């Protein structure tokens, strides 16, 4: 070690012009003092609960806030957190009672108003919160947040929210939705302190919440230091002293820093390192299913795909894809071939059913060719698969999928990849219904419910129904499921609806994405929650 120090100074001395700082500080590589040093990405939007819809901002909110419910990190079940009880007799009117004693880290108590004011703010059109549609089940949403572009709100507050007392409020929905209480663990539903409204800019610079951590410093674009909040009274306090989040632009660099002992935890192992990761980290590498499914969607509004026989065609394409081979060769087993439209993290009780799409989602090139020929061949003789080329390295697997289809059909020109320059452009083409051919689609769950995998994507006119799929039977079954009084019955009804998707194949399930993480020998008890985010508050630091 002495030797290494001397050489480091020699390097510095070589460039005399800037030797001053070279040998001084910067030796923070040893001992992190009970604090977890973790990799992070720059959040895309300001850190507000209803304006954060991606995982990097979400992981901070989940450390700083606790909502009415929290999803169990292991089982994904929604469990009461701030809520004492959430009851309903008709699946439409809910009575929410809060546990007493919860406070924000600035001392302000968490009351019914903390929720009502937050939800009214989140839903109001003027505030342009990207997660506003999550409040659309609440009565009065259409007045606060009219749907048409250019419309003005005719009310400032949601009429479905009524305060009963400081520890109780009621929610009236505009339709029956038995699983509503289980959605309340999502970050959009977090409570907000008065400071959020009185000094918004200061709050955004350093958000204040009611969770096990408080933010001690936040430098946008660079990093954030979170420290354990000693005043936290909840059942899940932090077992470490804090978390230092460092922004990395390149996951390779974060991985190199982990190897060098400069970082304790990376939650995104770069694809290029997947071959070495077992050797580098041994059992300090986690690779397990996450709540993400990848599909190939079809523009069902386009005449190429709307004919009567097109469903058969789509089933044929599905059977032409060799999923196990692609997940093994391209993804090094960080994906699992999909046999339904949900995710294994839901568990059997939550609605995941392996093999729900069985023959139609299995590789059978002979049958695939037969089905496609029965349906009159590929529209126009060939198809393309669109993807965005700027992030996510989709090219490899799209080419592999096309290869698989080409081999099955014995035609080298049947399928080619069609890259779109940027993600924004790609999304615009989808939103504006300009797609003429197959395109990649991905869905990351908001909350671990079967409803979240099916309704937003396949219900007629739903917010993320990119295929513009519409089937009366599917819609009827979803409505029926939402009106069921028990969650188990709702899940069963949803699975019936899902069987309709096997018939119509509006999107081909490809694979479930795994979450991955690697950590240093300093840490123990590192686990990933169903959202594939590390459970920071349970990490022990040696």
């Amino acid at each position, binding site marked *: 070690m002495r030797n*290494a120090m001397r*050489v*480091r100074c020699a390097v510095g001395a070589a*460039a005399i*012009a*800037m030797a*001053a*700082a*070279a*040998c001084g*500080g*910067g030796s923070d590589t040893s001992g992190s003092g009970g604090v977890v040093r973790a990799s992070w990405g*720059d*959040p*895309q*939007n*300001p850190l507000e609960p209803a304006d954060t*819809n991606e995982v990097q901002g979400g992981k901070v909110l989940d450390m700083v806030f606790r909502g009415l419910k929290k999803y169990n990190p292991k089982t994904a079940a929604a469990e009461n957190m701030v809520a004492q009880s959430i009851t309903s007799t008709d699946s439409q009117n809910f009575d929410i009672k809060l546990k007493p004693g919860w406070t924000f880290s600035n001392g302000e108590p968490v009351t019914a108003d903390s929720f009502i004011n937050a939800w009214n703010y989140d839903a109001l*059109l003027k505030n*342009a919160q*990207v997660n*506003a*549609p999550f409040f659309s089940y609440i009565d009065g949403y259409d007045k606060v*947040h*009219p*749907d*048409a*572009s*250019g*419309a003005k709100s005719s009310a400032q507050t949601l009429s479905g929210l009524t305060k009963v007392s400081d520890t109780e409020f009621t929610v009236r929905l505009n339709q029956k939705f038995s699983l509503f209480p289980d959605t309340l663990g999502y970050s959009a539903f977090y409570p907000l302190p008065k400071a959020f409204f009185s000094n918004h800019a200061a709050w*955004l610079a350093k958000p204040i919440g009611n969770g096990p951590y408080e933010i001690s410093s936040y430098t*946008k*674009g*660079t*990093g954030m230091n979170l420290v354990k909040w000693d005043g936290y009274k909840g059942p899940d306090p932090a077992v470490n002293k804090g978390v230092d989040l*460092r*922004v990395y*632009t*390149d996951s*390779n*660099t*974060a991985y*190199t*820093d982990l*190897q*060098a002992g400069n970082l304790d935890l990376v939650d995104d192992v770069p694809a290029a390192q997947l071959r070495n990761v077992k050797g580098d980290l041994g059992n300090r590498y986690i690779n397990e299913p996450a709540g993400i499914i990848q599909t190939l969607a079809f523009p069902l509004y386009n005449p190429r795909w709307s004919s009567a026989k097109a469903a058969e065609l789509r089933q044929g394409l599905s059977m032409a894809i060799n999923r196990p081979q692609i997940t093994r060769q391209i993804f090094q087993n960080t994906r699992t071939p999909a046999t339904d439209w949900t995710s294994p993290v839901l568990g059997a009780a939550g609605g995941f059913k392996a093999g729900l799409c069985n023959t139609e989602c299995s590789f059978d090139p002979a049958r695939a060719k037969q089905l496609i020929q029965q349906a009159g061949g590929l529209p126009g003789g060939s198809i393309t698969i669109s993807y965005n080329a700027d*992030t996510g390295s989709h090219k490899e697997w799209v080419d592999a999928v096309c290869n698989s289809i080409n081999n099955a059909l014995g035609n080298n020109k049947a399928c080619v990849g069609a890259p779109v320059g*940027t*993600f*924004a*452009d790609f999304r*615009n083409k*989808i*939103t504006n219904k300009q797609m003429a051919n197959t395109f990649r*689609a991905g869905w*990351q769950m908001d909350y671990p419910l079967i409803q979240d995998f099916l309704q*937003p994507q396949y219900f007629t006119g739903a*917010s*993320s*129904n990119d295929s513009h799929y519409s089937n009366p039977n599917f819609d009827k079954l979803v409505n029926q499921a939402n009106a069921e009084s028990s969650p188990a019955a709702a899940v069963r009804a949803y699975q019936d609806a899902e069987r309709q998707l096997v018939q119509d194949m509006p999107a081909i399930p490809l694979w479930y994405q795994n979450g991955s993480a690697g950590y240093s020998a300093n840490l123990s008890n590192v686990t990933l929650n169903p959202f594939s985010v590390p459970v920071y508050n349970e990490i022990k630091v040696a």
Partner: protein
Amino acid sequence: MGRYVIRRLLQMIPVFIGSTFLIFFMVYALGDPVAALFGDRAPDPATAAQIRRDLHLNDSLGEQYLIYMRNIFTGDFGTAFNGQAVTSLMGSAFPVTIRLTLVAVVFEVVIGIALGVVTGLRRGRPVDTGVLLLTLVVISVPTFVTGYVLQYIFGVRLRWTAPSVSPSAPVGELLLPGLVLALVSLAYVTRLTRTSIAENTRADYVRTAVAKGLPQRRVIVRHLLRNSLIPVVTFIGTDIGALMGGAIVTERIFNIHGVGFQLYQGILRNNAPTVVGFVTILVLVFLIANLLVDLLYAVLDPRIRYA
């Protein structure tokens, strides 16, 4: 001299306006950024319309450009999507990148010129051939390869330095990234200096200086080197702009949150204010560096005068 500088500064105005418009136009051509804000989810029309109105995206390109320019002259470069003012992004990014660039330039000047002089004076000897071969290798290997390899060797294997640079980016931590950034240009500086020196060793004024009986050191430094440096100075001057803008790869590898990082984020998220703002400043840096180079000619070679 003064009039020359003023004329050059005035020439910068049309270049500035033209380049900002071109960049603005190109970022605009990337398309509507609002959809990407919603991730894989379709934006609800009302919220999207609200955001478009706030960002003036419904106005024509010309109007948007005028609004942008009007704001720039009041010191408002707009905001990035995470709500930060672009000026504050610049405030944190430029000092880091300038430091990195300076480290790189110092490497270029010190090592590049020294190697160039040694090889130029010993043409055809083993030292010359060896260095030439080495520069050829350095030029042909892409920056990201040298970056990752050196990072792994010095950061992970030998542990002489941390593989990534901490947020404050002290000069000590920038030595390795600076070297990586400088390597290719360093090789060019070596070759330029070598050729220039080799040519000038046979010049009349060098022979005169030697005949006068001046010590060899003085001949080389005062007479030979000073005249040989003109092409090298031109190269380094234009290279400063290239280094600052071209640091994207190096900054990514070493996780330096400088100009390259912000530009990369801005392009990825289609954020016109970030991209246009940063590139505009880079254009200015380029122009000023060129002006300084032209002025330096006069210092190096008294025969060159500006009116």
